[in-house]
């Protein structure tokens, strides 16, 4: 006689709990894993893109068909948007955690120096230098002035979104009304005429920001003219070179302009104060990067469409060029990931192609970073409605050779903090330009390299 096999006993509650705990732990541990780093070389790929600007998101989304057509990958994007400084903080946190880093990251130029501290950039970002050399003619075509901010020790870690040339925006109608000739070629002539305009009409022809809560903006006002004059904050090795005769000349020029009324203080280039000054005709011209047209003028005074014009900066009698550069956002690729190659190719097939750079200008207003693109007939024919139909690319082409490189240092935020404060003291007459620069250099030395 045989017995049927005994039915297995139902699991006890404790056994079930143990099983659930085991499964949960296994799931948690697998989730903590860093994910596969086997390099993908073709096929479907979803790139994690981090950016602070929705404009870039749209640009890259629209670039997918081009990238798919010309390469071995079929791209999808998973976009995360965050504040510019937060992107670096989050990137480093994820890198320490060993997971969750993006493939493609947009670094606002002011946040990138954090990546230059220690060996962060070297460990975390893909070095594009061999990729650039692999594309015939690309190295010579890329503007060195715009690879400099995102480079270190000859390695390029990000590609800039713009060649943000500094130009002189001015109200043509009011220039004519106040008898200001187009032929004024130097800042010194501008300052003389500006003092008269302020005396007679209460208007100013130059602006400095004095918003105490934003040292970066305070520094920008000075930075534009300093770099135009031939000065700089840091050299290519990251050493401070601020304390120079050029810097003193520029700071003295601004301080004297503030006394005469040629220069006016505004609390914020983008805020209510500036808007009122523009609307009331108290600011009739200012030096600023070309992107200011979209972010400052069009947004604050759309009704003044057609009255504004763009020209080259007047020269300083003592020397220097006719433009500078201000701002920018560099896109980099995170190194040692499965998607590193895919992300690099994506960047090269969207961001750096001739068509991509033309499209970037038409969609976002940012100027090409490749020299040859400036010769494109479509860009040459472009007329700017806000500037009364002015054809601006001829001007941009002529400024191109004068765009100075902007070298960054890991200690840049220290410089901005100390320089911002000392610039305000100089503007208010508490320090002479010489003292302000000496003090800045001393304060910087005290704090840098800690």
């Amino acid at each position, binding site marked *: 006689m045989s017995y049927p096999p005994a039915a297995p006993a139902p699991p006890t509650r404790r056994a079930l709990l143990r099983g659930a705990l085991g499964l949960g732990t296994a799931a948690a541990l697998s989730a903590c894993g860093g994910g596969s780093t086997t390099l993908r070389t073709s096929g479907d790929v979803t790139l994690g893109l981090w950016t602070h600007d929705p404009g870039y998101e749209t640009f890259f989304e629209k670039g997918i068909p081009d990238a798919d057509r010309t390469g071995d990958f079929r791209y999808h994007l998973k976009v995360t948007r965050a504040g510019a400084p937060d992107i670096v903080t989050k990137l480093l946190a994820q890198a320490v955690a060993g997971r969750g880093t993006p493939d493609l990251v947009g670094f606002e130029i002011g946040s990138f120096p*954090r990546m230059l*501290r220690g060996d*962060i950039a070297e*460990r975390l970002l893909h070095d594009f230098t061999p990729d650039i050399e692999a594309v015939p003619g690309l190295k010579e075509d890329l503007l060195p002035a715009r690879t400099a901010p995102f480079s270190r020790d000859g390695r390029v870690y990000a590609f800039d979104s713009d060649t943000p040339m500094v130009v002189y925006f001015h109200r043509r109608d009011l220039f004519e009304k106040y008898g200001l000739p187009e032929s004024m070629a130097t800042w010194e002539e501008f300052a003389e005429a500006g003092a008269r305009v302020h005396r007679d009409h209460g208007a100013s022809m130059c602006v400095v920001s004095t918003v*105490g*809560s934003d*040292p970066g903006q305070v520094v920008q006002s000075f930075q534009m003219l300093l770099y135009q004059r031939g000065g700089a904050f840091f050299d290519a090795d990251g050493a401070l070179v601020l304390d120079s005769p050029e810097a003193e000349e520029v700071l003295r020029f601004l301080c004297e302009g503030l006394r005469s009324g040629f220069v006016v203080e505004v609390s914020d280039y983008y805020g209510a*104060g500036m808007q*009122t000054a523009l609307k009331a005709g108290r600011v009739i011209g200012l030096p600023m990067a070309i992107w200011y047209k979209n972010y400052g003028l069009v947004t604050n005074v759309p009704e003044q469409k057609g009255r504004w014009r763009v020209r080259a900066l007047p020269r300083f009698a003592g020397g220097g060029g006719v433009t500078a550069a201000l701002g920018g956002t560099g896109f980099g690729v995170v190194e040692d990931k499965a998607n590193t190659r895919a992300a690099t190719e994506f960047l090269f097939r969207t961001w750096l192609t001739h068509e991509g750079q033309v499209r970037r200008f038409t969609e976002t207003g940012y100027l090409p970073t490749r020299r040859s693109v400036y010769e494109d007939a479509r860009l040459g024919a472009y007329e700017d409605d806000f500037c009364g139909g002015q054809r601006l690319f001829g001007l941009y082409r002529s400024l191109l050779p004068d765009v100075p490189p902007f070298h960054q240092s890991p200690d840049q935020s220290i410089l901005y903090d100390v320089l911002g404060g000392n610039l305000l003291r100089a503007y208010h007459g508490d320090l002479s330009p010489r003292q302000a620069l000496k003090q800045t250099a001393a304060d910087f030395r005290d704090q840098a390299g800690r």
Partner: protein
Amino acid sequence: MTTTVAGPPGAARARSAPKEEERRPRRSWAPYLFISPFYLLYALFMLVPVGVSVWLSLTEWVGLGAPRWVGLRNYRLLATDISFHRALGNTAVFVLVAVCLVVPLALLIAQALNTRGLRVRDLWRTAYFVPIVVSPILVALVFGLVFDRQFGLANAVLRALFGSGGVDWLGDPDLARVSIALVMLWRWTGYLTVFFLAGLQNVPRELYEAAALDGAGRLRTFTTVTLPALKPVTAFVVVTSFICAAQIFEEPYLLTGGGPAESTLSVTMFIYRAAFQRQQFGYAAAAAVVLFVLVFGISRLVNRLLGIGRAAS
């Protein structure tokens, strides 16, 4: 004759040992298990971070890779860092504002709210309490508009009253500190008022009646009845205000960014700046340790001075 063989010494005790063991309460791990979650969490979220901070303060770390041991170098650098000294000075000013202005004002408001016959008392209480629950971002936005040099409410009022109002509230180093102090006053006073109000409601009415029978006036009653009765509450409020003010971050960060020229930079902002703007985590940790030691030491001193935790004799 009976021979008694003496056993080895202690044998009798050995025989009676089981009985003693039965009488002795059995060692049990249960109570330790019950209280262990607190200690585990305390160790995990308090001791470990503090220990790691102290260790980090002895290293140089950019936020990625391995920290490099530098011993006391960060502390030596802090001792000569003008920026850190400035932050300590500014923080001391904010602490003085909190302890010497906010606390007395909160007490006065509480006294006023405790007045008998006050109408819509709850409305007043709520009104004073609201600022502390308003988002700091909103506070910064509103006060940014109030203190705007060209179009701010403060200058508009000055213009209306005195004919001129070009005061650079946030752009002048001294006035920026005053602006932060005003925001602290607005934001914190109502919150502390609630503590004083609770204390005032617990003062026995008989004491006031006795003082009245003795002919004490309002001021005399306040100084001889109210203040002594409020001593424990005052001590608590002073210490917590001190600790909060010593770690002030939101107001200066959102309103002035620590500027102009670091005139409103607090120690916590200094730490944040070193860590998250300059990637100097070791240096930031050293500053944090210094702040911790200062806050802990001074709090203990204040505790002792005010007799917190000591039984009333």
